[in-house]
């Protein structure tokens, strides 16, 4: 029920393409038929020649030649038809590309309508203003600290710095790196073998 609504409408174009394709198929079938006749005539000519009837063989070959010329002609027609079919199909692709471009353009226009230059400028201006305002507010707040307070802050900073300098530096004794090649003792070998075994498991 719903299927008939969801399918595309059959247009005159569709019918024209189908007609062309059907014609092409007919030509192909015709070619097959002629090819069959060609092969048969050759066999006939061969058998006539084998039987020593040369004139008959010539007639068969002549008929074959005629069929061959037909085949060549249909080849030309087939080429025409196939070209036409491909041209139409390609044009359909172009039409759909054009349609796609058109729609894309529409969408772009819609978007641009919402994003006119004036509104962008206005927006940027407003943003600038907002930033200025923010800065002013910040300045006001910063200036609320009195000079005394500022001095106290600076003193505290100095105190902290002095503490950092006074931290004692502890000398750490580190073990030195070995200078000889490591030697594998028997016990170590057993351990290594066990390790290998475990890895393989």
């Amino acid at each position, binding site marked *: 029920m719903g299927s008939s609504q969801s*399918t*595309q409408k*059959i247009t005159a174009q569709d019918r024209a393409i189908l007609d062309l394709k*059907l014609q092409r*198929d007919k030509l192909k079938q015709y070619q097959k038929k002629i090819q069959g006749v060609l092969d048969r005539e050759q066999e006939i000519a061969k058998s006539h020649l084998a039987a020593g009837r040369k004139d008959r063989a010539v007639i068969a070959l002549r008929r074959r030649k005629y069929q061959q010329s037909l085949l060549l002609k249909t080849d030309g027609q087939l080429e025409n038809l196939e070209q036409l079919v491909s041209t139409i199909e390609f044009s359909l692709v172009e039409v759909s590309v054009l349609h796609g471009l058109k729609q894309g353009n529409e969408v772009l226009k819609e978007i641009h309508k919402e994003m006119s230059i004036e509104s962008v400028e206005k927006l940027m201006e407003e943003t600038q203003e907002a930033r200025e305002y923010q800065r002013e507010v910040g300045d006001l707040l910063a200036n609320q600290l009195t000079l005394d307070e500022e001095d106290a802050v600076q003193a505290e900073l100095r105190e902290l710095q002095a503490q950092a300098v006074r931290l004692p530096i502890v000398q750490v004794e580190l073990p030195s790196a070995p200078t000889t090649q490591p030697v594998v003792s028997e016990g170590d070998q057993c351990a290594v073998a066990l390790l290998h075994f475990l890895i393989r498991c």
Partner: protein
Amino acid sequence: MAHSPQTTPSGFLLPSIHSAPPFFTEQPNPNTQAQHTEQWTRIILTYARHKRLFVLRVEDAAVPGGDWDEVLRNERINRRMLPSHLSSILASMVSKNLAVYEPPKQIHAVLLYWRLPEEWADVLHSWATATGQLNTILTYYEITDPPVPSPLSNMPLPLLRRAINVLTRSGRAQIIGVADGEGVRLFAGGK
């Protein structure tokens, strides 16, 4: 060693029962006959799939030299399927929807369903998708005899029609008719 699986010249493996003489004659016991019919059905369908045969005629049992000789005859035990036997097997296959009489209204030839029309519909649809032929108009000849061989090559028209009908019912195909013949357009839609 008569009762062993045999491989035919075309590479088809016949089951051992194919070498049993009684298998070729209709059995009076209905149970045995039913079993034999089932075996025959399986052999016929797998052989048809193996050699891509679509049609089986009662005539194939009567006249040698056809596509079905390897199955319907067994020269080693000098047995062959009788046409009456074959026609009863065909009737049973038709009743089980493993084949249909084609053309309809006769009982001498069947179209074998080694793929059901629904399965053929899927094959057709995936072929069209894989070859980028969705939304283009295809003639039936183009489908059954494509320049590049496909799983649908040489498919008989009645079977193709059935497959397309399945697709139209699910909205995946549309049949277009003109004075000279028919064509079909496949859609991605559906599932």
